[in-house]
């Protein structure tokens, strides 16, 4: 990962510490105070969380907070922040209402309602099979819902799919990539499919490659990548058209901690400049650390949603989650596991 750090360091030289103290857990109430301009940092840090946030955003190259390498979209393009000011703070970039999906007799998603405010870092947590992936697939236009409405940036995803998809970046979980392409080709392919011109694609590819630390890998086939590298190139491809809304399904599964910290930096910079991240995960610590909003989904229903502070109350997110998801099962009946076979 030294490449990523080099990239980070060189970028820092050019753009010193724009993002100052990143306290992502911070918006006070209902996301209403998410501020638009990147330079005005969300400056109401929840004190108890600050050290945690600091740990996650610090890279080995440099003890102080630094500007993460990429994510600030090039000026003059359809950057998330470009029209954003007109919407006013607290507007929802993603509205889900009455969403339902069943597969045969299994109800995967059962009447989900969610509002994701502009500029939030939204975590969706839930046990395996809770319907997280199904929900996110319907949000991104990959899976047709049985009922319900999904509105992204004011556009209904299922009645105007082509327009809506322009403002969404997608990192699906467990879907293949065109893995007979090299990393560079895949980025170029994704960018051009998203309607970018050659010059922009090339420039953004170079930025993303540096930011994600993929210099050594871009000329190899994606089929030969490790799982973590594949996630990284897929995430880079999801961001290349600078979408308003990034929908990431299990983005940090099998990514090593150093790369994950680097990616979180990039995502937090993106959120600061007005972008919105919705991600699913079952890593409670991780979500509590990096997300400012959270929804808990169990058996296809939203059991709790809101700012991190609202949802978790006094305890940790994990406590709240386990409480909502039905509590711990006592590990009984496995006494044989206490004696060993030899």
């Amino acid at each position, binding site marked *: 990962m030294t490449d990523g750090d080099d990239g980070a360091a060189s970028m820092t030289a050019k753009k010193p510490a724009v993002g100052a103290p990143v306290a992502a857990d911070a918006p006070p109430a209902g996301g209403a105070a998410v501020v638009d301009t990147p330079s005005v940092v969300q400056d109401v840090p929840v004190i108890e969380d600050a050290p945690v946030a600091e740990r996650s955003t610090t890279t080995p190259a440099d003890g102080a907070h630094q500007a993460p390498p990429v994510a600030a979209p090039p000026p003059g393009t359809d950057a998330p922040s470009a029209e954003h000011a007109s919407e006013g703070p607290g507007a929802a970039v993603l509205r889900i209402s009455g969403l339902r999906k069943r597969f045969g007799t299994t109800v995967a998603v059962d009447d989900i309602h969610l509002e994701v405010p502009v500029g939030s870092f939204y975590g969706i947590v839930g046990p395996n099979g809770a319907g997280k992936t199904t929900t996110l697939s319907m949000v*991104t*236009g*990959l*899976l*047709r819902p049985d009922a319900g409405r999904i509105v992204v940036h004011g556009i209904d995803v299922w009645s105007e*799919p*082509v*327009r809506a*998809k*322009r403002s*969404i970046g*997608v990192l*699906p979980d*467990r*879907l*293949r*990539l*065109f*893995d*007979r*392409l*090299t990393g*560079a*080709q895949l980025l*170029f*392919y*994704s960018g*051009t*499919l*998203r*309607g970018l*011109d*050659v010059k922009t694609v090339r420039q953004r590819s170079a930025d993303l490659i540096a930011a994600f630390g993929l210099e050594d890998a871009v*000329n*190899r*086939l994606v*089929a*030969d990548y490790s799982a973590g590298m594949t996630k990284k190139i897929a995430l880079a*491809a999801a961001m290349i058209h600078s979408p308003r809304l990034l929908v990431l399904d299990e983005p940090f599964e099998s990514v090593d901690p150093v790369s994950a910290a680097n990616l979180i930096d990039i995502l937090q910079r993106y959120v600061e400049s007005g972008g919105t991240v919705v991600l699913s995960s079952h890593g409670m610590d991780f979500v509590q650390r990096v997300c400012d909003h959270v929804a808990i989904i169990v058996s296809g229903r939203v059991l709790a949603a809101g700012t991190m502070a609202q949802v978790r109350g006094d305890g940790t997110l994990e406590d709240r989650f386990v409480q909502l998801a039905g509590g711990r099962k006592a590990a009984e009946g496995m006494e044989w596991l206490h004696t060993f076979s030899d």
Partner: protein
Amino acid sequence: MVAHFLRLKLAILGNTFRRSPWQIVALGIGLLYGLGVCVLAIVGLIALRIADVETARNVVVIGGSLVVLGFLLVPLAVGVEDTLDPRRFSLFGMPNDTLALGLLVAAFVGVPSLVIASVAASTVATWSRGVGPTLLAIVSAALVTVTCVLTARVTTSVAALVLATRRARETTGLVAIVALVLLSPVISVLANVDWGRDTMAVFSALAGTLSWTPLGAGWAVPADAAAGDYGAALLKLLIAAVVVAALGLAWRGIVARMLVTPEREAHVKTYGGLGLFDPFGSTTTGVIAARSLTYWLRDPRYRASLVMIPILPVVLFVPLSIAGAPVEALWLMPLPVMCLFLGWSIHNDVAYDSTAVWLHVASGTRGTADRIGRIVPVALVGIPLIIIGAIVSAHFHGNDDVLPSLIGVSSAILFAGVGISSVMSARFPYPAVQPGDSPFQQPQSSGAVAALLQSVSFLVAVVIASPAIVFAGLGIVYGEDWAQWSLASGIAISVISVWGGVVWGGYIFERRGPEILAFATRNSS
């Protein structure tokens, strides 16, 4: 422990019948065919009892050597999926010798092993010409059976050990095809030998040589005994026994080796720059074409069709010309046949993407861009093929008047296929081999629907192209202007088919994007 392996192997065999009805029908036909060959071989061997020793020896030794060679080469070339790969047992912590023995015994349960055992056993009947030959025949039959089964085990495992990388796996199947093609000249040479005069001499010399090699030694033992040459018989018995012992040791060593050798890491190749994306870039259609073309060059599933298409006409040409069909007429056949398969080859193109097609769906890709991009590689191969192929075919046919007809028919067939493929691949994708799997592997759950869709897209292409074909036929029979009519109608059919296929297929692709992805998700492993 050995009993466990036997039971496991029987369970695996039983499970091959738990498939879709059509697969069972295919399997049944395969078994009947195998059984038929087996019964023929047994009857033939028993009948050889009355032949003279020399003839019987030649047939048994040459045929037997071919069988051993088959057990040696087939696993290497085809890369048989090994249900009893020693590596699958590495986590059970069994002693190596137990495992090697258990797997070997289990290998005797299986169709090829049973066939070779019964064929070898029936050589005892061939050589029941006295006590000595009979006893030696029994021993050598056992040795030959063990040799074949051991050989297959050893080569299968060597293939798994050496050829385990993705890239190697992708090439072996293609090597097998090329080998097959190289065989066709051999067949025609064999067909031209003056069999009447020197057959016996050739066969005797060949059998004599083979009988001293590991391939034929076992089969030759009772023959030499029956001829009264007990010295040679015992020497060959020794060779056969040494071969079995050596194979056994090799098998033991390979099992030990495999248990501590995980699947080999692929050697990673790097590519500079953007490759084909550079010339094609900048438009959605362009990058999809570049992606498609890159896959045609890199992905063995596409390369397989590139290799198969030139082979098919050869496979048709050789037997037909041997059978005495007029060669001038035969020269008109290869080009349209190649075009037919080329256009047809993309009728399930979307399924080849597997779930990676999500990128097109999530990007809101225009359907027409997707359709055109996927057609580009076929057009890039097909158009030069038609031009050059038509000139070459007309030259060998000996009459340049057929040139317009050849071009008309070939392009009509190619682009009618392309058009129908554009619609079919968007509307009716069916399970295909997954990316990274061997192109010759059967996808899970294909069966009757796949067969139906394949034949429909094939036939519809021919029907759409039929005006050009009819005009070409009239041109050959009556001359006049019919050849020109064939050319004109062929080009018109091409343009209309491609345009219609792209528009209609594109409309379907846009509308059914999520359903196509749902299909891919259902069928990805």
